[in-house]
């Protein structure tokens, strides 16, 4: 089964695309603690990419503490301290917010306005009427 989606011709290196996808899948619980990830070989063959690319993504996830290499079992999701996990989720959201604010700035929309829009979204329970003011 092809769990991951990559776009080889994108300017973002394939290992980075894989890294961020798996990071997200771990943080949002798609991969649970101790769950085994498909082997490097499997992923490389599913996606038709060089196995070195997959190794690189897995290696980076291991280095950053998301995965643990188990002898004869491959890569499994590392058990993490609740507090650390929460911090990582917040960091990820923070990056998304920074990106959002940068985009808004390009469009000439102030941070205050974006904050208002977010609050309104919350108040509306995120339904379709958002943004009409």
């Amino acid at each position, binding site marked *: 089964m092809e769990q991951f989606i990559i776009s*080889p*011709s*994108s*300017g*973002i*290196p*394939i*290992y*980075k695309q894989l890294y961020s996808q798996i990071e997200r899948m771990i943080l949002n619980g798609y991969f649970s603690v101790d769950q085994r990830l498909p082997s*490097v*070989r499997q992923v*490389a*063959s599913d996606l*038709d*990419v*060089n*196995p*070195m*690319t997959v190794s*690189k993504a897995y290696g980076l996830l291991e280095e950053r503490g998301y995965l643990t290499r188990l002898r004869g079992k491959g890569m499994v999701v590392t058990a993490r301290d609740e507090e650390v996990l929460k911090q990582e989720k917040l960091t990820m959201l923070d990056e998304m917010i920074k990106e959002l604010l*940068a985009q808004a*700035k*390009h469009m000439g929309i102030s941070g205050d306005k974006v904050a208002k829009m977010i609050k309104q979204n919350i108040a509306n329970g995120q339904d379709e009427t958002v943004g009409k003011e």
Partner: protein
Amino acid sequence: MTCIVNVKGLTKSYKNQSVLKELSLDVEQGDVVGLLGKNGAGKSTLLKSLLNISDIDSGEISIFGEQYNQLSSKNKARIGYVPQENDEISWLSVKDLINFRKQFYAAWSDEKVTELLSRWEIDLTKKISELSPGQVQRVLIILALAPRPELLIFDEPAASLDPAGRRDFLKEILSLVSDENITVIFSTHITSDLERIANKVAILDKGQIRYFNDLDTTKENVVQLTLHWQADKNITVPYLLRGKQFLQGQHAIVSQLDQAWLEEMKEQAVEVTINPMGLEDIFLELTA
């Protein structure tokens, strides 16, 4: 790392036209090198020179640590080559051609031949001249893979294959790369194939390897920048390949991202947006 192919100062001209000028290239074991270059850049000449099919004017080439024109037969058998044009005897049937070529190799895999012939639906009884260009290319690939080579040299191997055929060919190469740690050098115009299977990219331009680097590093380094600033400023972008100024801003394509410069821009309140580029665009910029 073991160096499999080492080229130093390779120079070659046809009649009075210079093709390769003092070209150097090192390929290490396990590397999958994608060779890009415009038409007539000399890709085929370079690959043929490595194999001593084409004479060179000067320079040194070593393969598996031996001088290229004095390779032992053992080392010759470790190389698989797929030429751009069919140079096999075309009046032979596929079966006879395979049996003919088999005699020259000690480590010929009948199993691999049978598997690929049936997977690629090639009729053994047909003459080479009766096959479609795509089928001929497949036969050439089978002939190159059958002796279980450790170094594969492909000259536009996928040029006459349709998308499904190309993908299947890539799969075969990838499985060889992951199982046997073989080294691959292939020239291509199809950058998306290169992006899937290569770990390194080499750009041949004006007779030299203009650029040789990790594919990932290349994508991280060669990027398009958009700069925005408020007050009057005169910004110099380091490693600039091409740029275009506009009012209070600049578009720029750089060959390398200078982190110290990025910090400086932040301090000067210059907004820098980094846009990654695909390999095709990178290639066009680097050879412009």
